[in-house]
């Protein structure tokens, strides 16, 4: 008696059934496939088969496959117990052909041909082969009965398919199977798992397989204590939420040493995870800090250095974001292949555009108001209203779609941290802008003039500095930096006319907290407030955390009325 497996056609060749991630969902599909298969078998009278062309090739490539006939013979017994045992035995062999047999059985294409004929019937458009040997087949009369299955057999099929995919030639499939085993923890897979570990050569997959093995061993009552302890150790080293769940699931009847080790493992993993959680929050804090820094750094020039309470600062950020939108729009219509470079075009565009707007504002409004700080507040607030309404009239009040270039989307894992690329690049960008600005103020002649004019305007004028021009340039510089901040913020925030409003209060708080007129203070303040905010959030919630921070700043200003890094000297008093 031979066992034959058939495929309807080579194109519809059965892929080795993987235990996959969602085996429960897949089970229903299998049952369906099984029924359909049965009907198909009855109608077409196909003998059962092993192999698609692709499969046969694989089987031959692996040459030294064991002869499965002893096992496959048990299918013929037409007993559920024997069938299930045969499936388990197949899974232990780890042979790719075994995988095909299991897959065929799952789809109801496994049938028993009368002995002693070896099996291949080339019926219309189908290939038929012997399950046991994979040998070429000769015609078989139709009407062969399919191997039957009940729930127990179906479970066995599922387990065998899962176990066999541990030996799949594709490492990604093997890893996936290892994860599935890790979750299912079926002790029956253990022998296959051992085979797989012995064979495995890819380190990552090997680790996954070993963790799966440990996951099974932890709960296995008849495993030696030392093995179970080693398994606990391995799972503890894994150190994630799954590991905690696994360690908690150690059965009550386990030896005391194992239970103690598991309990200790849970504490260790939890402590570890807590630290990662803090680290993640610090990362979020850095990210928020970089946003604050970007938003505030332009203000550190216009407000901090020049003393203009620039309420239109947020609108400069908004204009920068809209510049990005316009640049991207142009690129989309005229040169879509350059889209990944859109931000590189948007940065200089925003710098120049907002810089010019800033110079315009300075020349028309602010130049008349030097020395009257509080009145600059009112005038620039007016300017901000005009800019907002202008943008609203041109682009409409709704959010504009700003796309992310491919290198800014996505995320990667660092340990247990998940890091998104856009946030990471924004942190880098904010620091670059900071350094550039610092160098500009400290190392260039423009920076020297700016500092001279802000420290003592009349003396600077007496030294031949054209103070009016320097004022305009400084304000333009502050606005331009707000503009390029807008380019970056357009990647993480809604680009709407109200964009700037959301940043203006935070920006002022950062500059004041850091100390007016001190760039380093702005840097420290931005990151301090960002990190403090994110560390407070888990305990207090987002809104209350923010409120606490505001109260803290109010109290801090009482203690140090001029911020973290206060300027000293006579100029401050006036």
């Amino acid at each position, binding site marked *: 008696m031979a066992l034959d497996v058939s495929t309807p056609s080579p194109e519809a060749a059965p892929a080795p059934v993987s235990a996959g991630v969602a085996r429960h969902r897949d089970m229903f599909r299998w049952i369906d496939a099984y029924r359909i298969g049965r009907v198909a078998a009855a109608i077409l009278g196909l003998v059962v088969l092993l192999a698609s062309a692709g499969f046969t090739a694989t089987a031959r490539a692996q040459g030294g496959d064991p002869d499965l006939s002893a096992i496959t013979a048990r299918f013929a017994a037409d007993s559920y117990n024997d069938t299930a045992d045969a499936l388990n035995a197949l899974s232990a062999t780890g042979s790719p052909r075994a995988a095909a047999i299991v897959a065929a059985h799952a789809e109801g294409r496994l049938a028993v041909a009368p002995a002693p004929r070896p099996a291949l019937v080339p019926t219309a458009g189908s290939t038929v082969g012997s399950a046991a040997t994979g040998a070429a087949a000769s015609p078989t009369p139709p009407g062969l009965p399919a191997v039957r299955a009940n729930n127990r057999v179906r479970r066995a099929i599922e387990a065998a398919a899962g176990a066999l995919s541990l030996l799949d030639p594709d490492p990604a499939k093997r890893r996936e199977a290892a994860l599935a085993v890790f979750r299912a923890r079926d002790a029956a897979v253990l022998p296959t798992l051992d085979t797989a570990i012995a064979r495995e050569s890819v380190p990552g997959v090997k680790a996954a397989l070993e963790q799966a093995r440990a996951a099974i061993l932890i709960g296995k009552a008849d495993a030696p204590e030392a093995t179970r302890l080693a398994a606990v150790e391995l799972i503890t080293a894994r150190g994630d939420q799954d590991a905690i769940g696994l360690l908690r699931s150690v059965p009550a009847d386990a030896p005391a040493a194992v239970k103690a080790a598991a309990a200790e493992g849970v504490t260790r993993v939890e402590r570890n995870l807590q630290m990662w959680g803090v680290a993640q929050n610090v990362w979020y804090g850095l990210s928020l800090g970089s946003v604050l820094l970007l938003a505030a750094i332009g203000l550190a020039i216009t407000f901090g250095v020049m003393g203009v309470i620039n309420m239109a600062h947020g609108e400069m950020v908004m204009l920068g974001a809209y510049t990005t939108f316009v640049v991207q729009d142009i690129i989309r219509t005229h040169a879509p292949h350059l889209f990944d470079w859109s931000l590189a075009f948007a940065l200089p565009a925003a710098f120049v555009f907002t810089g010019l707007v800033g110079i315009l504002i300075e020349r028309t409004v602010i130049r008349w*108001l030097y020395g009257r700080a509080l009145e600059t507040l009112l005038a620039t607030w007016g*300017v901000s209203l005009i800019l907002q309404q202008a943008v609203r009239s041109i682009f409409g009040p709704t959010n504009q779609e700003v796309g992310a270039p491919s290198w800014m989307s996505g995320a990667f894992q660092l340990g247990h941290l998940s890091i998104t690329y856009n946030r990471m690049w924004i942190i880098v960008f904010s620091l670059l802008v900071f350094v550039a600005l610092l160098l500009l103020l400290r190392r260039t002649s423009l920076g020297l003039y700016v500092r001279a004019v802000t420290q003592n305007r009349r003396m600077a004028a007496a030294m031949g500095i054209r103070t009016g021009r320097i004022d305009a340039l400084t304000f333009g510089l502050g606005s331009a930096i707000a503009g390029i901040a807008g380019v970056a913020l357009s990647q993480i925030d809604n680009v709407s006319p109200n964009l700037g409003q959301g940043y203006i209060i935070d920006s002022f708080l950062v500059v004041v907290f850091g100390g007016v007129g001190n760039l380093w203070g702005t840097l420290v303040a931005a990151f301090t407030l960002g990190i403090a905010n994110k560390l407070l959030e888990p305990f207090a919630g987002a809104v209350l955390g923010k409120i606490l921070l505001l109260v803290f700043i109010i109290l801090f200003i009482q203690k140090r009325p001029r911020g973290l890094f206060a300027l000293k000297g006579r100029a401050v008093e006036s």
Partner: protein
Amino acid sequence: MSGRIIDRTGGIFIAIVLLAAVLIPAANLLLPPGHPLHVPDYMIPLLGKYLCYALLAVAIDLVWGYCGVLSLGHGAFFALGGYAMGMYLMRQIGPRGVYGNPVLPDFMVFLNYKELPWFWQGFDIFPYAMLMVVLVPGALAFVFGWFAFRSRVTGVYLSIITQAMTFALMLAFFRNDMGFGGNNGLTDFKDILGFPVQAHGTRIVLFMLSALALLAGYLVCRALVTSKYGKVLVAVRDTESRTRFLGYRVENYKLLAWTLSAMIAGVAGALYVPQVGIINPSEFAPSQSIEMVIWVAVGGRGTLVGAALGAVLVNAGKTWFTGLMPEAWLFALGALFVVVTLFMPKGVLGLWAQLTRRLKRAPSAVPTPTPAE
């Protein structure tokens, strides 16, 4: 700014407010709807609202115009007074709410409150609620000012932390857990002291009360700034450190004006709420407070009368403009800010004084002191 409590401008102001308090209700009630001088019904609460804003502007002018403290957080005091009044009005709804709970306001029933929070106790009693209208903003201002003035936080820094204060309060009141109705605030009021809030008669009385409150607030502030105390206050405004070196306790002078100003703002808020029928956290928004400062700047800083005038002018303009062409209102408001700060540093009142002086061709004998920062 001599010692006379009621100078010529003040006299005209008082006369106008008194006349308005009498003539506008009269024009509404006695003249038939077709008459050209008839004041339509909807105008009464609208004008009442302007009067509340005027009172608030007077309060801001007291600290900004005479004490040099630019508060970007006066909206907080205004809203706190409004919330105190709103809480009284909520308690007056009683079992007439949607859920029919005799004690708990609707939003509390909705949010599964089992009993009234402690800070809502007593607000069903009108005198207590009115006390809270002045005490809550007053206490907040006192504590805030106590710390800020003692630490000599001045100028821009003070402005920024007042802004932070109102911003923090806004965030807090937006939270449902605070027990003030969260996002929606307090609304759906039924009656005040037994009179229905929506009734025309009540609204006329509220309008007249607002006018009287504006007069009272003006007179109190005016009395304060014309007294010896007021002279020191102006000295503090102009050169704080010199005044301190002369031996005055600068922080105490500032603290009194600051706290009083907050209380007046609270009263303005309390009168505002029954006339507009709602109070919600957006009143705490920093932009609101900045706009309030603009009213004072438009009218004329350091004049009290000008502040009231500016509040009415700007808000009337807002109503008119937003009705006419809503798109243009922000342009107009923005341009107003710029033009006023650039060309009218003393506001409308200053412009008027300049014009009359030019007409008379008589140079003023006493130059008005320029307000410093």
